[in-house]
Every structure is written in C-alpha cells, then in structure tokens.
C-alpha cells in the first residue's frame, strides 16, 4: 500500500484498510523486536524530532526507541528546554524546527488542536503524540494492535468498555473512533461529571454503574484519572471514586469468558484498576507497551518513506 498521508493527526482520517495496513506493518516490527539484534537500517539518515511540550516519559521513550531501532536519528525538545517558556509562539518554534529539515516531527502538546495547527504550517510530516483532550492516535493504534493479536483480527461484535475520565481523555476519544470503525460495540462508564458534553451523540452506550457496564464485555480499558479532578470539583474525593469505579475482579463476574483488561499507563493502582487485576494473566498492560514500540516503528516507517515499496523492510 502506498502511504499518501502527510500527517497523522487523528484516527478519523484513516480508512479501515489503512488501519489494517498499520497493524500488518507493526506485526513485522514485533518480530524484529523479538530478535537479539533489534536494529534495522531502513530509516538511516532520516531525522525525527520528538517535540514534547507536555511532559511524558513513556510515549517519548517509545517513539525514541522506535526511531533508534529503525536507525533514524532522533532529537528531543522538551518543554523545559524549549523557548515556548520564553514566550515564543508555537508557530515560530515549529518553523525553527522545520528549518533544520527533519523528516517527521512527533508532537505532544497540552492544547487540543495543536498538532493540526502546526501541520498547517509545516511541510514535514507531523505525528500527533497527544494534543489536549482531542486525540492520541498512536495510543489508539497500539491498543488496537494489542487486541488485534488477542482477537485474531476479528473485532466485529466485540464489546469494549472504556472506564474512567472520558471527558478529559484524548485516549478515549481516539479509542472510541478506532474501535467503532473496526466493528466493536463500545461502552463507556464514568460519573456524569467525567462524561463529555454531547455524549448522547457519540456512538457509545453510556453507563454509570460498573457492574452493569461489565456485563458480557470482552475487554475493558481503564483510563488514567488526573488526581486534580477532585480539586476542580468534578469528584468528591479519590477514595469515593475508587469505591465506585476502580476495576477489580468482582466487576468482571458477568463479563465475557476471555475478558481482557488494559490501561494506557501510568497506572494509579487501586484507583483505576486493582493491583491484583493489573498483574493478572488477563491483563494486557505490558503487551500494550510492547505494541507501542512496534506501532510507532510502523508509523515512522510509513511517514518517512511515504510511498516507497514496503518490501524494503525485508530487503533491509
């Protein structure tokens, strides 16, 4: 498949075929990642800028490792070192970066729409590594890849529950778009204060009781809770939240027989998911991390090489 997109900003812009192509490409990189020498030279000479205007250790490390395993040069620009703090506008910052001729800019930013904003001003590719509450397409793709392996590429009719702070979650927004597109029935479960406005127009079933939400479910993705939501008046306290929404084994008694649990991390154990469940055989949390590196390798490969022949992976 020729890859014709310039940027990866959100899930909406990908067709089902393109999503499956990303899964397919990623699975080859999973194989490479299981070798003893995990480095291939296919992106030698390519430059990837990791521009993280909002701190994130795991996503940045995942992209960094993905770039290095493909032999691309990666450069990091973090908030503390960036001139954004000195009052330079985002536009000027990214134009400066572009002048250094990178092939891809991976950006994390705390404001919704910022990845789309910079993409309008840049000729190089932009991969959105999370913008505000809007989108986190690479997380959704790695969640999708993880379940693609478990479910053997069959998503149709599977029941998937997203649990927790949906309103402020870019992961939830991107996961909902990805999994509904793949054919899953998506449910959300959250207190009303953490449901997005207009949720009745979303293609999801809404629950506020976790036992009901888990009935017949095939996978649950528990989301990270920002502890400051309590101070914002959205929750009485974290303990009460945990008593109602912390996913544990007993919620899953009526779930599907092979129910799996996931979490984008980092986990607040005992608040979003019980420690026992997070470490259980039903947990895919570490598989998600593994999928993450492979998906990001696939994306860097597709966005750096564009429409080049995919056989290159094998030739190299």
């Amino acid at each position, binding site marked *: 498949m020729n890859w014709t997109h310039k940027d990866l900003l959100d899930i909406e812009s990908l067709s089902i075929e393109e999503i499956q192509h990303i899964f397919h490409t990623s699975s080859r990189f999973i194989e490479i990642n299981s070798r003893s020498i995990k480095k291939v030279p296919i992106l030698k000479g390519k430059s990837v800028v990791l521009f993280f205007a909002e701190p994130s250790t795991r996503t940045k490390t995942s992209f960094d490792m993905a770039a290095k395993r493909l032999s691309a040069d990666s450069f990091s620009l973090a908030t503390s070192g960036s001139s954004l703090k000195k009052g330079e*506008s*985002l*536009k000027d910052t990214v134009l400066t970066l572009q002048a250094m001729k990178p092939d891809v800019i991976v950006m994390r*930013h705390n*404001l*919704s*729409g*910022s990845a*789309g*904003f910079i993409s309008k001003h840049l000729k190089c590719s932009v991969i959105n590594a999370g*913008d*505000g*509450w*809007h*989108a986190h397409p690479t997380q959704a793709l790695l969640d999708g890849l993880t379940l693609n392996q478990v479910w053997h590429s069959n998503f149709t009719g599977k029941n998937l529950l997203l649990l927790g702070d949906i*309103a402020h979650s*870019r992961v939830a*927004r991107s996961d909902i778009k990805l999994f509904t597109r793949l054919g899953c029935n998506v449910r959300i479960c959250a207190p009303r204060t953490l449901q*997005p*406005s*207009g*949720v009745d*127009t*979303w293609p999801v079933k809404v629950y506020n009781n976790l036992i009901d939400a888990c009935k017949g479910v095939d996978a649950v993705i528990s989301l990270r809770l920002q502890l400051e939501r309590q101070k914002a008046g959205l929750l009485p306290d974290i303990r009460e939240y945990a008593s109602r929404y912390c996913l544990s084994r007993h919620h899953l008694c009526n779930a599907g027989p092979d129910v799996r649990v996931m979490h984008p991390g980092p986990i607040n154990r005992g608040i979003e998911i019980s420690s026992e469940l997070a470490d259980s055989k039903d947990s895919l949390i570490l598989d998600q991390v593994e999928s993450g590196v492979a998906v990001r390798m696939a994306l860097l490969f597709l966005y750096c090489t564009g429409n080049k022949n995919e056989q290159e992976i094998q030739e190299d």
Partner: protein
Amino acid sequence: MATLKITNVFLNDQSGTLIIKDNTIDSFVQGRMSLDSSDNTFDGKGCTIMPGLIDVHVHLREPGFEYKEDINSGLGAAAGGGFSRVMAMANTAPVNDNSAVTKLMLEKNQVHHPYGPYVHPVGALTRNLQGKELAPLAELKDAGCKAFSNDGLPVQDNELFRRAMEYASDLDMLVIDHCEDSYLAADGVMNEGRLSGYLGLKGIPTTAESMQAARDILLAAYLDTPVHLAHISCEESVELIAWAREKSIPVTAETCPHYLVWDEEAVQGYNTLAKVNPPLRTKKDVLALRHAVKSGVISIIATDHAPHADFEKEVPFAQAPNGISGLDTALSICLQLVRDGVINLSDLCGLMSHNPAQLFGFPVNRFSKGDPADFILVDMEKKWKVTSESMLSKSKNTPCLGQTLQGRVMANYIGGQKVLSRLDHS
C-alpha cells in the same frame, strides 16, 4: 444657508433626491429634479439611503493596544462600515476608569476624524474593571462617557452590581452588562455541547450567560432601574428578556451580526477566527436570536468589534484571544437577513440606528425635516470580497475573511459632511 442635494437615490423604495440644509435633513423629493448649476449636488448612482449606523459596543484598543487598532483606524473602519457613532468599551490599558482616558479618546477623535464618525466612550463600572469598587462614575460622565460597563470582566458580586445600577441611575446613565457567570464559564473556549465534546475543548454553557441575564433582569425589576444586556448569544437569554419585557421590566438587549448568521460549526478545524465570547452557539440559538430581532425582544444590533492582530489568532485554539473584527462587515452581513426575509430594511434601520440612538440619547435620523444629516448610501447589489485590503480596520480577524458579501456602503455623511466615498466621482 448651505444646501446639498443627493440625487438619484432610493429612500423607502422611492427614487428621488435628498435635500440637506444647514447640515440637517430638509426633505426628500421624489422623481427627477431639475438642478441649478449653483446647487451643491452628489450623484447617489441608484444607491439606497439609510440613516447613519450607531454601534453601541466596540473595542477601539486605544490607549494600550494600538497594534490591534487605534482610534484613527477604528473610526476609519466605522466610516467604511456606515457608522456615524460608536460606543467604545473601557478595557483599554490603562482602563477607562478616569476622566484622563476618556478625554484622550475624545481628543484623538477630534484630531483624526473631526467630522465623525464619533466615539462615545463607555466608562468602566468598577475601578480597573476589578469588580471590587465603583469607578468614579460622575467624573466619567462629566468627561464624556455615555454609559458604564465592566464588559469583558462582568461584575460577579451581586451586591456591588446592584449598587452600581443604583448609583448610575442617579446620574441618569445606563449600565451595560456582559452577562457571564465567571465560574460557569471558567476556562471555556467555545460553546459547550456536542462539538466541544468532540473537539476536546472546554465549553462555556449557555447558562453562564442566561443565569447572569436572569440576575440583571431581577435586579432591574426590584430596583425599577434600567439595564442593558450586551451581545446576547442564546435562546434561554432571549426567553428571559421576552418575559421581562412582557412584565414591563426596564431591560433592553443587543445581539451581534455573528450570532445571527454563524453557529458553533464555524469553529470546526479549530478556527480561531470564529473564537468569540460569548461563543457562537447552535442553530437553535441562531433561530431564536433571529426571531428576537424580528419581534423586537432584542432591539439593537451591535458589532462587539474586537480587533486582534493576525499573529495573536495564529495559535492553538485555546490560546487565541476572543473576538471578531466587525465594523467593516456588519451591515453587509445583516443585509443578508433582509434578503432572507428575516427582517425588512426598516427593521434594520431600527436595530442599527434608531433604537440605539434613542436608548443612548443620540439624535435620531428618520429623514424628517430637522433630523441630523447622518446617512449612508448603500449599493444593495454590490458584491465585495472581504480581504485584508478591503477591510479598513487594522485587524482582519473575521470568519468571513476571503468570502464575498453582498451590499456595500458607498458613501457616509455625518452632519451633512461626506466622511467616506467609494463612488467614483470627486
């Protein structure tokens, strides 16, 4: 006695000549008129004649933010948009909470536009717009302020707002309130609803406006003291105002051209040019506002002209300042409502000229003998493209940038003086 004749114009669908004597309206003579060579005449070229527009809500940015707009450029845009008077809000730097700032604005007007358009400063209701203590309202009135408002930073303290209304009424001055509960609106950047949830942006619920509108209405009823509600954006507020007017509570309200033609869809793609406060709402709200201006529940259309430099709008949505530059395009946008049959041209003259003049004590031009010769010539068919060149405001932040509008102000007369002409003769 100087006489001026504007020939070949339409007034109330009648073709004829407008005669101005001593800088006031003398008469309108239907049909062709034989002209004396000594007559001072101007060929109106088939334009429609309307009273000079009055905008009760603009931001001219001077002093303090002259890179966005200054009094000279803002009044230039007003002239081009067909306005003879504009009322300028107090959120300058320094804030217009003392006579020195008021006088500076009036002096700049004299220097740059001595024949108009005229700026009428609106004084701050509270010192430095802090909402903590009253500004020296009598001093501001004496210096030339026409009303008081904390626009942009509405007073949350109900007791203080009540006292402000009382004190202003002693001075026979009107309080203009930007209705917003700052807790409900906190950190919001667009209308709260389906689209804000989809885009992942913090929303501003309609109740942030309507609850404050309800407060103001109840205070106006309790004190039997008038209040004017600025830039109303949603259906709930309209319903409350309709209720108040039915009960003869002394409340008046304005809305803006942008709330009558655009809904929240305009912010799709994180379009910062459509970021305004209050935010663009839903189709339902647009329809409610159209009905409100048609039925007279909302009696004034004001622009809330809020110019910003392009680099300030070229940022991620949440960081962009609120505001649409409105003076250049207001009339053309509203003429679309006339073509759509929402209102007729005489309604529009009421909404954009007669009603604001009456409410704030400016002379009203109904083209009767002795009325002020403040009028504009409008080419109803003329199509023009909104570009940075065709806009006279320093700032070009409007969602209709790049679009073609129909209906163009071709000349603007204030007090019988021509302050703008786009007709190609001397």
